[in-house]
């Protein structure tokens, strides 16, 4: 039945916006597939299933033992998005995806805007206030610098602009999640997103080892170094690992300043989207401009996200509600990532230039490290901040 309806165009069967939910019968198999992938991947609110990938990784973390106090799989950025993605990727590549699942799996296109909008209360800008103005400026400047440099360098390294955009977002914000968030905005391909993600995580891992070595030479105070890790490495556990490798005080300040990077994260992906969107408007006819092609106006969910972000920053959503909303985000992205994983063949990840993305991450990441260290060093030297 589903194959019959699938051949009828959406426009033909559309009655209202709710038509995009399709019929219950059509979507059930796919939704169930996503559901089971999600609960086999993560600890999700309401489902006390201990046998999942998240717990397996945590077990392996404990077998390996901590590195600089941090868990190894966290350093390699396993989280609720990527656990479900890997589970989907595994199932899709080993067993394939039956047609009957596909209607349900197409819910990914509802889950992505849904999840992005619900992320808004996670970024309460006021939480950064405790860091003081100068650290906020350093983090913001590093963000814009990295994103811009990455987008510019992409042309020299002949990286596809969609690929470069998601990479720029992930690298600049220091959070590979952003690669996934940017996916629908940029209209990036799944393979590009994963390639960018892997590049960001790998470079982050390298940076978290290298930065403490450089940091020791530069002679920053632990507090200043903690700030530097947040901006120059990012990515939670990777930054903390770099911080704790320097000293325990630096590690604690990594955690302290991490909130600044965290709450500014939306600015990072909105910046990348904005730049690419304007660029597309300027070079409409250029066949090399792929990013945001097909996005005719600023998508409504981006606007809703920005409004929600502003509302959340006015402290409308109090703490337990924020936790509850974030639990829903976890559910949402776990389901979506499962579908994304199923959609992709492993080969596709390398289709967009096996090492080109990684090379781009390395070059712009290195420039960022230099930029951040210089900025922090100057601030410390001219006592712009009491490090």
């Amino acid at each position, binding site marked *: 039945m589903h194959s019959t309806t699938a051949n009828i165009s959406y426009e033909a069967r559309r009655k209202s916006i709710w038509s995009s939910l399709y019929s219950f019968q059509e979507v059930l198999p796919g939704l169930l597939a996503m559901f089971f992938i999600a609960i086999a991947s993560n600890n999700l609110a309401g489902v006390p299933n201990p046998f999942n990938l998240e717990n397996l990784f945590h*077990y392996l973390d404990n*077998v390996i033992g*901590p590195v600089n*106090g941090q868990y190894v799989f966290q350093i390699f950025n396993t989280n609720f998005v990527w656990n479900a993605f890997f589970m989907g990727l595994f199932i899709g590549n080993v067993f394939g995806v039956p047609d009957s699942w596909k209607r349900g799996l197409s819910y990914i296109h509802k889950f992505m805007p849904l999840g992005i909008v619900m992320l808004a209360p996670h970024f309460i800008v006021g*939480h950064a206030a*405790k860091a003081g103005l100068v650290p906020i400026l350093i983090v913001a400047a590093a963000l814009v610098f990295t994103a811009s440099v990455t987008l510019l360098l992409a042309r020299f390294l002949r990286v596809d602009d969609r690929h470069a955009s998601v990479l720029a977002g992930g690298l600049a914000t220091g959070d590979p999640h952003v690669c996934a968030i940017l996916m629908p905005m940029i209209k990036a391909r799944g393979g590009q997103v994963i390639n960018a993600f892997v590049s960001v995580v790998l470079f982050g891992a390298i940076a978290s080892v290298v930065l403490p070595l450089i940091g020791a030479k530069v002679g920053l105070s632990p507090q200043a170094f903690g700030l530097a890790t947040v901006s120059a490495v990012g990515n939670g556990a990777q930054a903390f690992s770099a911080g704790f490798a320097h000293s325990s005080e630096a*590690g604690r300040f990594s955690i302290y300043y991490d909130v600044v990077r965290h709450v500014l994260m939306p600015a990072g992906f909105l910046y990348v989207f904005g730049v690419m969107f304007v660029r597309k408007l300027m070079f409409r006819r250029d066949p090399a401009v792929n990013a945001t092609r097909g996005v005719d106006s600023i998508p409504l969910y981006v606007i809703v996200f920005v409004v929600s972000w502003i509302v959340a920053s006015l*402290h409308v959503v109090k703490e337990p509600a924020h936790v509850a909303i974030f639990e829903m985000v976890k559910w949402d992205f776990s389901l979506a990532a499962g579908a994304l994983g199923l959609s992709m063949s492993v080969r596709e990840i390398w289709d967009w230039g096996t090492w080109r993305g990684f090379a781009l991450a390395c070059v712009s990441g290195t420039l960022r490290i230099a930029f951040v260290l210089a900025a922090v060093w100057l601030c410390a030297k001219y006592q712009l901040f009491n490090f």
Partner: protein
Amino acid sequence: MHTRDLISMLFAFALAATLVLTPAGVREAAALEANPHGFEPADDMPYIPDLTGLRHQSFKNQYGQPRHLSEGVALRQSFVKDGKATVPAGGLYYISEVEDEVRPLMRDPFFILGEHSYLLKLKTARRVVKDFPIKKGEKKFLDSDGYRLWFDYVTDHYQKPYAQLALISPAGHWPLEFPVSTHFQEMNEIKQHDFPEGESEQLWNFYLEDTYAYGASVFKAKEVTFDTVVFDSIEYPVIEEAMFSFSRPWTLELRQEDYRLYKDKRIYAFRRPNGFLVRVTNLSGNEVLAEKLVRPSTPQGYKDAEGRQDEYSLTIPEQDMHIEIMIDPDYLSNSDFVPTSVDVPYGWTEGTLSFVVYDDLFSLKNGEPWPLDDRFKVGLEANALTGRLQRLILENAAPFTLDSASGSYDGPVKFSHFWNRPAFSVVAKNFDGDKVFTYYLRDRFFQRTDNMVFSADKGRGDIDFFVGRTPTLVSLLEDTFLTRLADQSLDTVVEPSHFTSYPKVVSNAAFYAPDPTAPFVPSQKGFTRKKDKNRRGEGLLSSEGFVIRGSYVDYDNNRIVIPPSGLYYTSRNARNVRALTGETFVFLGRKAYLASFESATVVRKNFDIDYWRLQPTGQLNPVYWQDEALGYNNKSVRFTEHTYLDDRVMGEVNIVKYSGNPFGAPFHLTQGFDPKDKASRYSVTELFAEGSTWTIPAYVGPNYIRMAEMGTPVLKRFFYTYTEPTQVKLAAGETAKLGAYTLEVLSADAGNTSVSIALRDASGAIVANKTLGSVKELWDVLPQQQVAVKKLQLMHGNVMAEIDIDNPVENGKGVLWLFTDILESEMDQKLAWDPRFTIRPDVCGHCYQLNEILLDNPEPIILDKNNPTYDGPLKEDGTPMFRIVIDSFDGEMIHAWHVETQIKDKVFKTSNLAFRPRNNIDVLVGANGSVEGFLRQGMLERMAYIEYWRRGVHPPLHEGLAAREALNLQ
């Protein structure tokens, strides 16, 4: 296993040989031969709270009573030498511990090397040690099992000693410190007094007995001096044998005069007048395998007594069977989930009789090798109060070494339903001379702890550690916890708050403890912590601090609220401040000399105290209406815990001080146990009196206690001066200046040890005169009795003369101490120069002396955007003692705040006390007795959080029952 054993023995011999031959090894050889029982790991040993293979969970027994079980692994008395780590016999040990006790016939759960088991049988005994002398500071062996007695310290009243001691089990656990003395009145004598309700004068007697009866343990002293205690007898319970089952039991409804099938056997039950004749046969019923009269087991406490346990079960070891008959409502069969502890306490209105058949039986004998691995020795330890099983210890029987070649030592082999394997292993590597740089513990699932050498460049000279959350840790840390918590190498530890929609709110924080996660700032410039000496040369440590308690974020109004009494300044000495000996204390940064004091006794009669199911101190719930007041703003009485001794309720009553700290150890109250009754297995006194605080219960029940009478001291006012008192020696007729007056000695009587004095004003008229003394006659109640104290002092206006009690008359001259500029502080009075604060002097519950000075806020303190700072109490010069500064607060979360003090032009700030976001500004600043008391209450949790803080990761979420508890208590 045997090969391994042989190897480790060879190692031991080889090591012993080397040590004997090398003179450098003498110290180590001594350590190797020393018995580590009752000793703690190194003072700076790493503590790791969680390792998955070591469980920490709560279960319920068949009657629905919760048992809190936990496991741990500890290593003590090890040392690293020449690239080799050596652990003496008994140095490495596994502990399985239950918070209170497990008993037979209850299906009580117990962990054995990670495996859930049930205790079935227990063979206990009472060990008696006669004529036992011990010196102060000693930890002396009582027996060959490794029990030690610890003589912690001695203090005095009326210049006579009373000693504080503790019985330490081989694992290092001790339940409490108990006081004994042979110089004071028996507590029963308190009954002879007839006190009116309300306030009366200070007691002349001091109540403390030569015998401390603690349930199954009794300590009877023969002689107590300042240096030694000689015990007449010490009795304590030991466990000789215990039998467990590793499987959930089979429960079969009993069929009278007929059989049930169990595996390939029949179990018959024939009704007899006093139970059931249980007969086990083979499948066909031809062969009788065992037969016995078994009485149904119900939860009466006496049934597990020596010699009675056997009536309630049939054990057939050769068939791996243990049968009990249980009466239960059938919905309860096998249930861990139905909490009946709040329901019908005993027996069931409607029930069924069931066979409960256990298999996978496992017997352990104290001191014998562990059955699965004879490298380890079994230790069974009893709860000193109830005599039932509390701890299982498995310790290495022979010394072992770890070095680069063999860097791993397996723990005992565990029982498993699938695969018997070592329960854990200790791994050490990267040796360099006398240092080791890596060591950790791996559990049976191959998960490991972090490297326990925390300072990678310095290394460690031993491989001591403690991993797990067993309550024994609290005892092991007794000597070092304050130093550990005060350690600033990781800066001020700040535990993030758990944010909820409903902040805990109390209208008045008096008698409350601060949030157990409140950050602790051990020292801050401007707060004194100084040692001073009294006239007798005794050192007194004075220490100031302040506490914020009960504060919360009122997120509806974007503000932080500190309730009345939520902020208090505290000044306290290491012990109470006594008159007549020139003792000093610190008051708002200034050294003050105590002149005199006025105390009284508060008595309350015939009142009820409710049992607190949830307690604000330690257990976080702001339930408050159960508090019973003992005097206005003086003490609060709380019934916090209860247990059963042979079905009699033993209630634990805490007297809580205004500061929120408990006064001494809790009072144990139970009725019907006469310590002189030899037939009873428990001894507990019916009333309780310690020093000058006493309770006489009329009825002790599980839900409330009816008090016939209760009394405790209260301090009404105290007199002090900032001017150092001076000593004068005057013969009859000689004079000295005393403030605006002239002091004249009229006579000095060396024989009677008294001095007559007169005080003249400027015109020469006598304004006061008095004979101070006789010291000799009053000697037996000095220096604590205030009537006696007053007889030795002459106070007039703001001056005072006091006779020197140690040397009243010298060469015919009266020896006097002169106090001028005396100030008076009265309880509940506003601070003269800063009416925002009220003075609450706290009294010593033993001795009526000044114990602590508190200054607290009578009005709530509000901190918000417009008022982000608050000044603490002003010093007399008008500058604040400290200032609270909120740096970053978003209306819901506090992201940054600190305390600052100013000395001249320099401002000293604490670290950010909301380094991780907090929902209150509760804090402990300074390190005196009050702060220490709060730290002690949440010691294990605090110590555990430090490890996560050190690593910069979140503690794991609680699971199962523990999660529910954690949630309830947040």
